[in-house]
């Protein structure tokens, strides 16, 4: 039934399995033959499924672990898209089932499968509607993975929406006392974002015209499958080139090619005084930054986190927030480089505001989980700043290494934050499961009551603090160092954040773990960490240390792709926008010197 080209797409089944296996199991679990009462079995099936998906993704991402590199597996160190899957889906609108991974998405996929596995293990304390919970949980995993691997904008959007609904229910049903408020807030915020995104998708779809691309670009973007033989490729190209009406596309790679043309079709159209490119960039940016989230569209996050059950908080902080950063990196910048260059100050500014604002807000929280949630806002600010430092302009002789460093740092920060924030939320959850409160003022002395747990928790919190040797440090320092070349003011403010970060994390540690005695209720429930909890916490701490001392485990994946994208865009700046203004005005001292 599948077209013949399937034979030349070795990644079809592995990638499809990674994405859809959770959904398949969710469908099976939801059948009435699965009795609601068999909760233990449902939990184990879910855990097993997520574990299988994790192993599958690891098999793809780290081939050497499983022996020789197969054709479907990821070749570490290559910059381009790999493991491409291309099947027609809705041919009338050129919508395709187009999947693929590169150095940006592969680590995020593994992070997702890994955290899903841990979150499934952390779901044991869930006792309400166990079956429904796990069905939704698996659906959520499919949605998240689909977003990371889909290269068709329409498919991307579908997965994006698929992810929202289970999350809404998971917060709204299994959450804390104000769960309904939090769930609706989450849903409205993210729905607003997706609506704007949909608008941008349609704008880009109807403006783009594949006939503007050369044959090589069409093949490179997989509009014309490179697995076809030369004659078939030529036919397909000719079919596009000779079409009498514009050929629209949802292909993200092709849209990026179009956006980076010297005469970008998106920049040519003007709407209410701004180019369509700018509109699309802004709409997409709003859609993505709500997910990141940045100030001032961040207030769904504390509520959602506080109300969500622990495993969902882990997923929310560990994976969902990354979708925003991923979207900006994968979609906003390559497709709308002109707007990206012009609005880099906006991206950086939002990032810095989030960093400082989130840190200040975290300092003021009385609720442990809320504090961790605000720390996420602050930490994701680094991601925004790193993504935005478009320093490859004329005044900088179009040198792209500082920008590449920023983007690499942002990617690293995303992955590291995935580990540390999931860990932090889990650590809070462990306490909450025992004493059923999160008031920072009513803890204390936990170190003496639960020494192993406290040791692991402090390690994870230090990773959040950005201590060298732990994962938080590398991303922060790379981003901060890179930002100087873009804007000195932002760089100084971002450096200032390290003080606040230290303050709120150490203060929280002091109030919770240190001290002589526990001050809250249910003190007798503070039992030592269980084996299951240890099995979740230890890998997180291990990875936090591993990424801290051996960051190249991640950079091996990330850097080639990021560097190529940044280099491409720097070259684009040189050829298309050589007169882009210098990022920052000369300092007063230099101005004086010149006079």
């Amino acid at each position, binding site marked *: 039934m599948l077209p013949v080209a399937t034979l030349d797409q070795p990644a079809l089944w592995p990638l499809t399995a990674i994405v859809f296996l959770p959904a398949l199991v969710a469908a099976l679990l939801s059948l009435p033959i699965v009795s609601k009462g068999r909760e233990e079995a449902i939990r184990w099936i879910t855990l097993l499924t997520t574990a299988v998906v994790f192993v599958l993704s690891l098999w793809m991402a780290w081939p050497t672990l499983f022996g020789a590199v197969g054709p479907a597996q990821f070749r570490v160190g290559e910059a381009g898209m790999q493991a491409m899957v291309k099947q027609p889906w809705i041919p009338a609108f050129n919508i395709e089932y187009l999947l693929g991974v590169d150095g940006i998405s592969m680590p995020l996929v593994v992070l997702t499968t890994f955290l899903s596995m841990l979150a499934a293990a952390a779901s044991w304390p869930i006792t309400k509607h166990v079956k429904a919970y796990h069905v939704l949980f698996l659906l959520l995993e499919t949605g998240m993975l689909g977003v990371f691997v889909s290269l068709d904008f329409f498919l991307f959007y579908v997965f994006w929406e698929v992810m929202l609904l289970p999350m809404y229910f998971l917060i709204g049903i299994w959450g804390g006392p104000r769960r309904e408020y939090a769930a609706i807030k989450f849903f409205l915020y993210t729905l607003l974002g997706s609506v704007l995104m949909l608008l941008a998708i349609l704008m880009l779809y109807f403006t783009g015209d594949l006939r503007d691309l050369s044959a090589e670009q069409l093949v490179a973007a997989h509009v014309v499958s490179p697995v076809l033989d030369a004659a078939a490729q030529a036919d397909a190209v000719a079919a596009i080139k000779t079409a009498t009406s514009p050929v629209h596309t949802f292909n993200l790679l092709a849209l990026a090619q179009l956006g980076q043309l010297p005469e970008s079709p998106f920049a040519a159209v003007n709407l209410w005084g701004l180019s369509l490119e700018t509109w699309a960039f802004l709409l997409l940016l709003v859609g993505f930054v709500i997910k990141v989230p940045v100030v001032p569209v961040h207030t769904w996050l504390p509520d959602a986190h506080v109300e969500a059950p622990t495993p969902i908080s882990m997923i929310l902080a560990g994976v969902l927030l990354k979708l925003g950063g991923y979207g900006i990196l994968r979609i906003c910048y390559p497709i709308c480089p002109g707007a990206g260059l012009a609005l880099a100050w906006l991206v950086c500014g939002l990032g810095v505001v989030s960093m400082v604002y989130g840190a200040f807000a975290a*300092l003021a929280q009385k609720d442990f989980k809320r504090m961790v949630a605000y720390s996420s806002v602050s930490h994701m600010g680094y991601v925004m700043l790193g993504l935005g430092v478009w320093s490859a302009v004329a005044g900088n002789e179009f040198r792209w*290494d*500082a920008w590449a460093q920023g983007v690499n740092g942002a990617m690293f920060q995303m992955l590291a934050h995935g580990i540390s924030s999931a860990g932090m939320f889990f650590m809070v959850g462990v306490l909450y499961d025992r004493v059923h409160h999160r008031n920072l003022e009513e803890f204390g002395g936990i*170190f003496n009551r639960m020494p192993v747990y406290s040791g692991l928790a402090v390690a994870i919190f230090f990773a959040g603090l950005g*201590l060298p040797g732990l994962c938080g440090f*590398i991303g922060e320092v790379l981003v901060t160092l890179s930002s100087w070349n873009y804007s000195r003011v932002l760089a100084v403010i971002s450096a200032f954040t390290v003080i606040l970060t230290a303050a709120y994390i150490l203060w929280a540690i002091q109030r919770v773990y240190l001290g002589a005695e526990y001050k809250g209720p249910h003190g007798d429930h503070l039992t030592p960490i269980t084996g299951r909890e240890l099995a979740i916490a230890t890998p997180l701490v291990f990875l936090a240390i591993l990424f801290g001392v051996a960051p190249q485990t991640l950079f091996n994946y990330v850097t080639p792709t990021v560097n190529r994208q940044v280099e491409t865009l720097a070259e684009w700046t040189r050829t298309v926008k*050589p007169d882009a203004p210098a990022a920052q005005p000369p300092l007063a001292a*230099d101005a004086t*010197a010149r006079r």
Partner: protein
Amino acid sequence: MDPASQLPMLLGLAWLAPLASFLAILFFGPRMGSHGRNAAWVATAAIVTSLVLSLAAFVTWLGVHPVQAAAHGGHAAAHASDHADAAAAEQDDAGAHADAAVHGGHAEVPAHYAGDWYTLYEGGRLRLSIGWYVDALTVLMFVVVTFIATCIHVYASGYMHDELHDVTDHEVHLAGGGHLHRPGRFPRFFQALSLFCFSMLGIVIAGNLAMVFIFWELVGICSWFLIGFYYERTSASTAANKAFIVNRVGDFGMLIGLMALWGALGTLQFADAQVAGPDGSVVTTPGLFSLVRPAAGGHALQVPDGMVTFAAADEVARIAADHAGNPADAASEVASRISDWRAIGLGHWLLVVAGLGIFCGCVGKSAQFPLFVWLPDAMEGPTPVSALVHSATMVAAGVYLVGRFFPVLTPEVLLVIAYAGAITLFIAATIALVANDIKRVLAYSTVSQLGYMMLALGVGGWVAGLFHLVTHAFFKSLLFLCSGSVIHACHTNDMRKMGGLARVMPYTAGTMLVGCLAIIGAGVPFVIGLSGYYSKDSILAQALCFSQANPRHAILFWAVAGGAFLTAFYMFRLWFMTFAGQPRDHHIADHAHESPNVMVTPLVTLAVLAVVAGWTLPGGFGIANLLEQARPAGTAEGFAAAGITIPAEHLSHGEPFHTIATWTAFGTALAGVLLAAAMYVWRSISPAAVAAVFRPLYAFLAGRWYFDELYDALFVKPVLGIASLASGVDRGIIDRIIDGVAWTARQLAGIDAWIDRTLVDGLVNATANATWNAGLELKKLQTGRLRQYVMFIVVGTVALYVLASMLLSSSLAG
């Protein structure tokens, strides 16, 4: 023997040994003997290994670069480095430098070995790595740190024996009354101590600033662990947090410095590095030192190209626009303009910012004004920690870094450093005058002495500052260990409850006297003295030299001289109050006892070193001359800019500075000791009376200049205020807006529902009602009476008939 590979290996292993010990204790600590008793042995064995390896490296170094006698006049440096170059030239290795001397005999790069072990990040021309930079200073610091650490490990294994069994902490009052009872934490202490040693050695061996920053933070967190060792005490955990956060303030500045260097130069390496070029050839990438002081310019300070172009970004952009399409032309045009731009001073501020930023980090770590407030509170930690971390090594890291980074510092920055040091030494010394907690006196003394070192570096006394760093490390750790011994015996920190302890604790009293004499720089003028005598004299001499060269800044010399007097007074006040006279509290004095041998042995060892560390042996071997080997290129002859002259250090060894400095030091120290004796031994001046006379001043000093209160009001409260403001904005404004939007939407929905109910539904209902009413009306027609029905039918039929016929006829007619 190949020092270029041997030295990094030896020092690298010496660096990693404590890490191994840390990991071992982390995982197996509690299982090492009963209550982890053997953890002390593991940690001590590790640090002894480090010491042995460091000594081996030291010997190796001396084998290649023998220390020459220093003739006054500064040619020692030249000789030493001549020799170093000769030796280095034999190695064809990447690390060793053999740059041809360009500018006489003084302008050579000091002998050093540099390289990288490990890369953290590499992208474009930017690279963050873990590497080494080994010169005489590194080797010396390794020996000093590992030696003191060894002594303190041995001492601590005795001092911390309380932690071997369950502990009742009398300083913690539980809510339910009574004191905290907890298991001992003996292994945890040594675990943190090992991690600290690893981190500290990491700073010392670091080959680039990024690595310094990494280990900078790590020593910070070790310090946090160690200050907060008694974490049940609120005061301890608060002090730990305070230390770390205040240090982070300094690190904030340091980050800015790093950014200024990194953003413009793209490297944080100290030394040049040889890397394989694209075509297989070996390319030398310049490090910070040769960028700022290029060999081509005779190692004179200049703004590096990268900073110049960074500052001239708008010009560069204009050139790029002129040469659009031809990047090579643009690049060469930029290159040709650099010297012009440099001439008008572009980028100079960037170098200043970099220097100030790095110094800012040092201000935090070395507890300089205005960030010195954390160090006295850090005395909440166990005394061995105070001795190792908060006096001898970690806090000296800031001074070490200023010394290491010295070639990049501009005269303006050095002046700031000098003034920061002067202010610090004065403030800290005045507070130490009135402190009564024995450890706090020592803490303020530490701050004050660090101020000395900073000042020395700031006025160009590179060797003097670092020399004092080394000698101070010995005698200050000695003093702290002695105070620990006293506290161990008396179970109190309050000097007002001590007195007359010399009789019961002869070793402690004797070694502490040695320490006090060393810190005040006691000696027979021009003949011989304790270690402090030499280092302090050279600082005084250099300060004097600087004051002569820059008369506007003469106050720096007076600060040093005044500080020397204050130091002598408060140190001997401490000694006299503790050991001399009669016991003030007989209960304490009767129970006091000399400490066990395991604690006394380190005291004696350190006391010996406190005496001899400053000596220069016949033939020239001595720490000062060893340091001369590492003097940064281009700094020996002094330099000047922006109206500030940094005098050459060898001038201060000559006359008249040397003589004046020696007599000043001797005089001030003697005066301080005599005043202390007059007040606390002979009682000819009553301290209470003096305090009464200067009551406001006394209160001001006893209140520590109210810095804590000031910072609380200036920074802590506003930050917390902003924090709650931010949180309030979230809840009060953003959420209000969101909720308001939601509320508005609900209201709109309500209006919509009302329209539905009233208008749309109303229409439908009206139709229904009309039909209903019509039915009601029509119903009346249905009377149920047959005869009426018949009539209806008939009438109806007739009517229809008539109607039809009328219509029919009219239509026919029409």
